[in-house]
């Protein structure tokens, strides 16, 4: 999925999970804390219950390959190297990611929405 220059913060719908929860992706572009406060505050402002949305930081455990891949991917000529490093990083990170989703699913049985934030 390609995120364009002005897209950070855009909430992208990814579909529904097996329990009917809506799943979204959100790029936070290095502003993790601020994004958490924005979302929290938004929910409070409109009186939306905290159970309605669960924000999961999927980028907290990003490894070196992923970060290097993201860096190289910015440059046109080095993009293939960046992609290779990203795939390598994802493969290494996959177990942790799948464990994260299992934890989230077990936690969010009743919630209707799940947003996953990613650096």
């Amino acid at each position, binding site marked *: 999925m390609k995120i364009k220059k002005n897209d*950070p913060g855009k*909430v992208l719908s990814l579909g529904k999970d097996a329990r009917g929860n809506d799943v*979204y992706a959100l790029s936070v572009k290095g502003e993790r804390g601020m994004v958490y406060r924005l979302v*929290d505050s938004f929910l409070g402002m409109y009186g939306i219950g905290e159970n309605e949305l669960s924000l999961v930081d999927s980028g907290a455990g990003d490894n070196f390959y992923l970060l290097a891949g993201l860096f190289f991917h910015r440059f046109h000529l080095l993009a293939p190297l960046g992609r290779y490093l990203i795939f390598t990083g994802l493969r290494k990170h996959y177990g942790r990611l799948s464990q994260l989703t299992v934890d989230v699913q077990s936690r969010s049985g009743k919630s209707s929405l799940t947003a996953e934030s990613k650096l």
Partner: protein
Amino acid sequence: MKIIYHCYGGAHSSVTAAAIHLGLLPENRVPTREEICAVPLYDRQEADEHGHFFFMGKDQAGHEVYLTARRSRPEVLENIFTGLAGIFGISADDYYLVNVMGEVNLTMKLGGFLSRRWGVVRVGRPIVSMGTQAAYFQMVKLVQRVKSKVGGYGENPVFQPKHLSAGRSGGGDSHGTPDGGGETGQKFLEPDVFEDQKK
């Protein structure tokens, strides 16, 4: 409707614009530095509060006025707000995001940097309030544009003499400022602006 003023640190320009909007600062003259510094939240917000929406009050048309800090990423705030509003079925007519950074001058940036980033409040605050005075009428114009856009302010949304008359509280004033407007007729909110603050 919720009107949300946002700027880099949510400490100066957005606070000033929200205060003008609510009639806490006059529209027809540049306020003194003391008046500016007396506005709740002016030069107060810290970095770990960025992203939080602070409720400043209700204006005379019943619109709720908020402010927030979004650092150098207005697009993040706008995208998240729009995205969440879409998810929860909140109409685009129910909120209005106003970027105040366009009215910020170099003096404000320098003073704000010294006061908020470096913590040299004694030096930074006078500089940033001086910058606020210099940019004041630009902010007044911005607020007037916002008011004319959101509507609900009667015949003349731009000029509101009831906020300027000495020592009177406006009859239709709904933002519930405490009585005792003082000689200038300016009224300041009590720290109930923190009611919405995250514990």
